[in-house]
């Protein structure tokens, strides 16, 4: 498995939480959300833009985000997303789960790196 494929697999399923995490800090529209994720991860995460919009609409349908249209500086209007209390709660639950999960993965990996006593 290539580096990109591995990263893509690891990223799968986490996009909703990355979206909620960046929107928690303030209202953003779709393109800004993609940019913000890229910036915050130092380019490590580049969510597929094709999957970003279905994710946004799904989060909205689930009540984790609300959306408002605003006129853009140029071109079409932009749809701004804001996190809801339900979204904050979802994100908090995911963060706790992620910490437990990543901690366990790290521990397993570090044990396997130690030289065997034999």
């Amino acid at each position, binding site marked *: 498995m290539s580096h990109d494929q591995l990263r893509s697999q690891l990223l799968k399923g986490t996009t909703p939480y990355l979206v909620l995490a960046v929107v928690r800090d303030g209202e953003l529209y779709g393109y800004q959300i993609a940019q913000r994720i890229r910036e915050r991860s130092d380019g490590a995460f580049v969510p597929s833009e094709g999957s970003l919009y279905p994710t946004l609409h799904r989060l909205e*349908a689930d009540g984790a985000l609300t959306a408002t249209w605003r006129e*853009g500086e140029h071109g079409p209007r932009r749809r701004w997303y804001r996190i809801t209390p339900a979204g904050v709660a979802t994100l908090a639950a995911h963060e706790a789960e992620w910490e437990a999960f990543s901690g366990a993965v790290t521990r397993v990996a570090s044990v396997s790196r130690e030289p065997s006593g034999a």
Partner: protein
Amino acid sequence: MPDPGERDAFLASVRSRLDLPDAIARDVLEELEGHLEDAAADLRAAGLSADDAERRAIGRLGDARALGTELARARRGRRQLLAAVGGGIRAVLAEGIRTWIFLAVLASLTAILALPAASIVRLLLGLRSTSSMLVGMPGSLATAGVVVGGFAYLGWILPARSAGPAVRSVRGVRRAVALVGLAVGSAILWFLVPVAMDPVLVVGLPLGPVAFALTALRAPERPTIRVGFVPAVIGAAILFLPMTLLALAATDPPLDNWMADISPIGDVPAATDIENTALAITWSRSYGVPYGGQAEVTVVAGDAAATVAARLPTLRVEVWSARVVDGVVRFGSAPLVVQPAPTEPITILH
């Protein structure tokens, strides 16, 4: 300037898979267009030509049709689907009650008009009695027609009323409404409707929920068929003939001189030592020919009531089938129900 056709083709391809109402689809496409605008501007700022920037921005959104399918799926989240089903049930109740009241009023008015028409037909044809099977069949056909038509109408309008504009045209919602209507309609018909049905109704009535489901699956986003004044008049006119036939069946000539041999009732057992003449036997009837009704026999023993009750502590209460043929009540060959009952003299104070 980049070729605008490429972006338009991409958005049109997304739209082809957006199974959403026009207004919602327009919003989704406008959002994508804004995204393409921003992405292309950034790429141009990074040094790409306008055409390359446009092409790269479109390419980053991936396959247009897959994106359309995913967006449509995302817009109808579970919450909205549940809300749609909830809305569907509310609409079934509200619209269903309204429609059925309307149909009941229509049927009643038609029946009221059909009664004098039936009398005229009877007078003209010299009919004394009519065969219920002969004239009941068109009546049953009319009933089944009204039920099937009513259900089909409900199926046609309900999906549009079942949810907000975000989800009402979604196929899944139509399927949900069709399924709920099929189940609820069948349950109502089988558990609430009286079971005395002829073959036409046995076959016709269950078709109602089926008609509901079929029309619900093809229901428009904005139904154009609404029951207005003109369709109501046309419907009443169409119903008039079968209703007249039904009225013919339901209103046999009045039985002013109906007769029945009730002499066995008057045979008081010898053990009572009471003369038959001491008993007054009367009939009272509540008769709705040809589909049902009842006649009650009252035995008035007068001063001998206490003696009768003492010597005959129980009576046999019998229920007989009976039929009026040419103005004469004819009983069946044996009672349908025989049940003992305590004798209870009723004291009448003068």
